[in-house]
C-alpha cells in the first residue's frame, strides 16, 4: 500500500503544478490535467481495495473519523440529550437521547469518543464505566415504554478496565444490557461506526439489524489486547489484526452482521454527508420493515438471530 501511496503523492504534486502553470501562463492543459486526475482516481481505488486489516484498524481509529454525535447531527433532527443512570453519575463515554428521523421519534444511543485530546479525556476515549451502560439501558427501557425504536452507534475500544469500574460491576452492567436488549419490546438497530471492541461494544449491539461501516472493526478484543493475551506481547497487534477476522467483510461472511455500509475513498471522514445519507436510508428502510412485524415476531427473530451464531460440530 505504501508504494501506491507514494505514486499517489507524486501524481497529486504533479497535478498541482500543472494547474498552477496552466493558470499563471494561460495555457490550456485540461487534457493533461484530466488524464492525471483519472490516474489518481484509479490509484485511489486500488489502494482502497487492498487495505489490510491493520490499515482498517487505523482508519477505524482515525482522529478525524466521525463520532456518534457527528452522525446524529447529520442524520436526525431535534436531538435532545439525556443524562445519567439515576444512580451514580453521568458517563460522558456514552451519549443518548431523543431525536426525530423523517418525523418519527426514536431513541438514539452511542459510544462517544472525543475529537481532540481534551474531549477524549472527558469522554475517556469512548470507554464506558458501568454507569454508562446503565444509562443506555435506562434510555432503552424508556424507549420501550413510549414505543420508540432504538438506534445505537457503536464506537469503543472496549469497556473501561479500572478499579471503580470493577467495584461498580462492569461485568454485571454489560450482562444486564445483553439480557434486556434481547427482550426489549421495540425495534433495535445497531451500527458499528468505528471500533467495536469486545463486550463493551456488544452491550449496545443486541439488535434486530446490525451494520458496520466499511472500514470499521468489530472484535472480541483490541488487536493489542489479543496479542498480549495469546503471545504475551502487545506489540504484535498488526499480526493479531491479520488473523482475528475483524473487518466488515469478515463479519458479513460470518453472517454476524446484516450488511456493510460503504464509505467514500479514503474513509468516512472524507465525506460525512455521503456516509450519513447512506446510514439514514438504511435506518428509514429498516424502521418500516421492523415496524410491520408483530411484537412476537420481532422478538423471535431477534432471539434466533443470535441463537444461530457459533460454529461447532454436532457428532
Amino acid at each position, binding site marked *: 500500500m505504501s508504494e501506491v501511496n507514494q505514486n499517489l503523492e507524486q501524481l497529486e504534486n504533479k497535478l498541482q503544478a500543472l494547474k498552477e502553470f496552466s493558470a499563471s501562463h494561460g495555457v490550456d492543459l485540461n487534457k493533461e490535467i484530466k488524464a492525471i486526475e483519472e490516474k489518481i482516481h484509479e490509484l485511489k481505488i486500488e489502494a482502497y481495495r487492498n487495505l489490510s486489516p491493520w490499515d482498517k484498524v487505523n482508519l477505524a481509529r482515525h482522529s478525524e473519523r466521525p463520532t456518534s454525535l457527528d452522525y446524529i447531527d447529520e442524520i436526525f433532527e431535534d436531538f435532545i440529550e439525556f443524562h445519567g443512570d439515576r444512580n451514580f453519575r453521568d458517563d460522558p463515554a456514552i451519549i443518548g437521547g431523543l431525536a426525530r428521523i423523517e418525523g418519527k421519534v426514536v431513541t438514539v444511543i452511542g459510544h462517544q469518543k472525543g475529537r481532540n485530546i481534551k474531549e477524549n479525556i472527558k469522554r475517556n476515549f469512548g470507554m464506558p464505566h458501568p454507569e454508562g451502560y446503565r444509562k443506555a439501558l435506562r434510555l432503552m427501557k424508556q424507549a420501550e415504554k413510549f414505543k420508540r425504536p432504538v438506534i445505537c452507534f457503536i464506537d469503543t475500544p472496549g*469497556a*473501561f*478496565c*479500572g*478499579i471503580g*469500574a*470493577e*467495584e*461498580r*460491576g*462492569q*461485568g*454485571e452492567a*454489560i*450482562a*444486564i444490557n*445483553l*439480557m*434486556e436488549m*434481547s*427482550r426489549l419490546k421495540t425495534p433495535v438497530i445497531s451500527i458499528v461506526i468505528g471500533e467495536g471492541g*469486545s*463486550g463493551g461494544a*456488544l*452491550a449496545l*449491539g*443486541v439488535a434486530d439489524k446490525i451494520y458496520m461501516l466499511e472500514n470499521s472493526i*468489530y*472484535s*472480541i*478484543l483490541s488487536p493489542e*489486547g*489479543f496479542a*498480549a*493475551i*495469546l503471545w504475551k506481547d502487545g506489540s504484535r497487534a498488526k499480526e493479531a489484526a491479520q*488473523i*482475528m*477476522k*475483524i473487518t466488515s467483510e*469478515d*463479519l458479513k461472511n*460470518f453472517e*454476524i452482521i446484516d450488511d456493510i455500509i460503504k464509505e467514500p475513498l479514503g474513509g468516512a471522514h472524507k465525506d460525512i454527508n455521503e456516509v450519513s445519507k447512506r446510514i439514514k436510508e438504511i435506518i428509514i428502510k429498516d424502521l418500516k420493515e421492523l415496524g410491520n412485524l408483530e411484537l412476537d415476531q420481532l422478538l423471535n427473530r*431477534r*432471539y434466533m438471530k*443470535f*441463537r444461530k*451464531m*457459533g*460454529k*461447532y*460440530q*454436532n*457428532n
Partner: protein
Amino acid sequence: MIKGLFKKTKYVTTSVPSQEKAPTPNIPDGMWVKCNSCEQIIYKKDIEENNRLCPNCGFHFRMSAKERIKLIVDEGTFIELDKDLTTLNPLDFPQYEEKIRQQEEKSGIKEAVITGTGRIYGEEAVIAVMDSFFLMGSMGSVVGEKITRAVEEATERRLPLIIFCASGGARMQEGIFSLMQMAKTAGAIARHDEAGLLYISVLTDPTTGGVTASFAMLADIIVAEPGALIGFAGSRVIEQTIKQKLPEGFQRAEFLLEHGFIDMIIRRQDLKKSLGKLLCLHKEVK
C-alpha cells in the same frame, strides 16, 4: 468428609521448606502441593479426599467439572446432555485444533463445560458445570451452545437451572464467534427468566471476562465460593491501564459481596446442602 475431620495428619509448618525438611524423600514428584493460602506443603491425596480443600486452612483449590458433579449431584442421577458437540476452527486459527486435542487428552473432557440434568437432595435441576482445566474454561462456540441448550432445556421442562462458572472469559481463538456467545446465552436466560423459573449461578475460581459479563451475573441468586477471583477485566490489564497496584483482596468473592454484586459466599463443604435448600424453597406449587 466426617472421616477427614478426625484425621490427624501432620503438616510441615515452614512456608519455605528446606531440602532436608521436605517430607518427600522417597515419593515421586507431583504428590505434594503447596497451599496457595497457608503455604504449607500438603499431601495431594489429602486434598483430593477433602473435596479439594486445604485440610489445614480450608483454602478452595480449583475443581474439575467431573469432581464438581460428584460433589453436588445425587449419585447416579446425572444425565449428560450434548456430550458430542465438538469444536471447529472458524477463524482457521493456527494450531487451534491441536490445542483442543491436547486439552482433551489432558482433561479427559471434550470441551470446557459439562451440561445435564440431575437431582440435588431429590430436587431435579438442569446443571451446567464449567471446567477451568480445559483451556482456562474459556467460552467459544461449543461452550456457548451447550449452555444455551441447557438453559432452553430448563425452560422447556420448567426446571430450575444451576450454572457453576469457572472461566477465564471468552475464547480468543474463535474471535467474534466467542463474543456472540455472550449475547446468545443471555438471550436464553432471558426466556428462562420470563418463564418464572429459578436460576442460581455459583461463581468459582476464576470467573472473569465474557462469562462474568453474561450468564454468570444474570442469576436470580448469585453465590460464590470463598476467595474465588471474580471480575470483568484481568488484574494485569487493570494495573497496566491505571499504572498502580491493586488493593489486597481486589476482585475476590468477599470484595464482590461487600460491593453488593453477589448474594452470599458458601463454603464448598456446605454447598450441596445450601443449593438443595434453595431449590426446595422455590419448588413450584402445582
